[in-house]
């Protein structure tokens, strides 16, 4: 297979996640390994930022501890951190000459056998979610066309990731809304059940359930469900108050 064909196939593979079941870890691993297959690169890895801005390795072409540590150290300094902060491509053509730039990272990268590094942002408009790190055993830099191709792969993966996040957030919100609505209904129904069983008015029924929920440190809606199902009796609620 020609390199162009391989590259096209990789695009399809990454974009496929937009229409089929989605495994984040798998997409990121695919992206990292394809970079090593397709370009003059000896190691590749992805870091994604959490909500607090901490960087985490989420996919690597090599699962060696030493390689993974190279990503970890970049929470303090390194091309990924710079790339994540600026949203711009970061290039270091000779790590042996870059001790001033990143003292710890440069030392560890050279010890791991690497001489040059580039970091490509994972970005959609202003939203930078991480960076793709490309390591080489020789000094120098990737040809510009290869950098474009890497950026394009990172872009497709970024869109897939953001899409997946958005869908999950919406689903979660919808579930919470539904739960909250059900809770409201259940609490009203339980007030009616308790009012009848304990022969108290609605306000008193509500106070009994709320007092029990507070004393036992449980959620009011769950007390309401227990009242309805008869797991918590009226007399138990009245003892407590």
């Amino acid at each position, binding site marked *: 297979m020609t390199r162009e064909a391989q590259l096209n196939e990789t695009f399809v593979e990454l974009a496929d996640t937009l229409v089929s079941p989605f495994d984040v870890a798998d997409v990121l691993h695919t992206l990292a390994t394809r970079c090593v297959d397709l370009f003059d690169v000896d190691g590749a890895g992805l870091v994604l930022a959490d909500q607090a801005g901490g960087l985490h390795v989420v996919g690597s072409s090599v699962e060696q501890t030493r390689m993974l540590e190279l990503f970890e150290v970049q929470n303090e300094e390194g091309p990924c951190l710079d790339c994540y902060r600026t949203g711009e491509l970061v290039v270091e053509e000779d790590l042996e000459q870059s001790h001033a730039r990143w003292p710890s990272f440069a030392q560890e990268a050279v010890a791991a056998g690497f001489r040059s590094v580039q970091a490509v942002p994972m970005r959609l408009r202003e939203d930078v979610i991480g960076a793709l790190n490309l390591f080489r055993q020789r000094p120098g830099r990737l040809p510009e066309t290869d950098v474009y191709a890497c950026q394009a792969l990172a872009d497709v993966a970024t869109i897939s990731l953001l899409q997946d996040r958005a869908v999950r957030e919406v689903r979660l919100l919808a579930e919470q*809304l539904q739960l909250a609505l059900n809770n409201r209904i259940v609490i*009203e129904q339980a007030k009616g059940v*308790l009012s009848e069983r304990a022969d108290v008015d*609605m306000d008193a029924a509500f106070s009994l359930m709320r007092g029990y929920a507070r004393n036992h440190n449980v959620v009011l809606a769950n007390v309401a469900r227990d009242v309805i199902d008869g797991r918590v009796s009226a007399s138990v609620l009245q003892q407590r108050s």
Partner: protein
Amino acid sequence: MARERRARLQERLDHIAPNDPPVQQICIGSAAILAVTGSTVILMSDEEIGATVVASNVGATAVEDLQFTLGEGPCLQAWRTGQAVLEPELLDASAARWPEFSRQAVATGARAVFALPLQLGAIRLGVLYLYRSAPGMLSSEQLADGFELAAMATALLLDAQAGAAQGELGAGLAGDWTNRGIVHQATGMVAAQLGVSLADAIARLRARAFGTGRSVYDVGVDVLERRIRLEE
């Protein structure tokens, strides 16, 4: 296209109801933009119990009560099928899909009813209900606007829920629980009185309401006041 339509609609909403919170704005604005008499944003629970978030007028609020009493109607159908329900003339034989709803809705002043699902992919939240006091179909342009307004309402409902504590409804989503609470409390009382399930209790309240030509809310008040007791 959709983006332009949304921008245009938002501009009109800002003009029609400049000072209302977003979900209210959509509800009130929908009535004006779609040339309908009234509109309601209704959330639906897993048990198919509607909860009106906001209604543009009193006539629009009646529909929730009516459908809950009868267990049928355009909103329930839209909710169950996930598809828009369009009924331009309730007096038509075609409205026979909900005979009792149609009869009673006409009595409350509705002649055409439309229910657009509030949904996003597989996620369903509720229904945007619209009615007209005179018969008449929505034009294709109004229908396109209606779908876009429903999509905007869906996004706003989710936004409103984003700030809420776990298990609580988001700010502005609870609507008016004074009347609705009474029906659910009465359901609980009936369940306890007769030793039946909540679903059974709701069915009995509905049957009583239907049999006596009253709303399920009115029957609920009587149950709570102990003026009536449903029989075994």
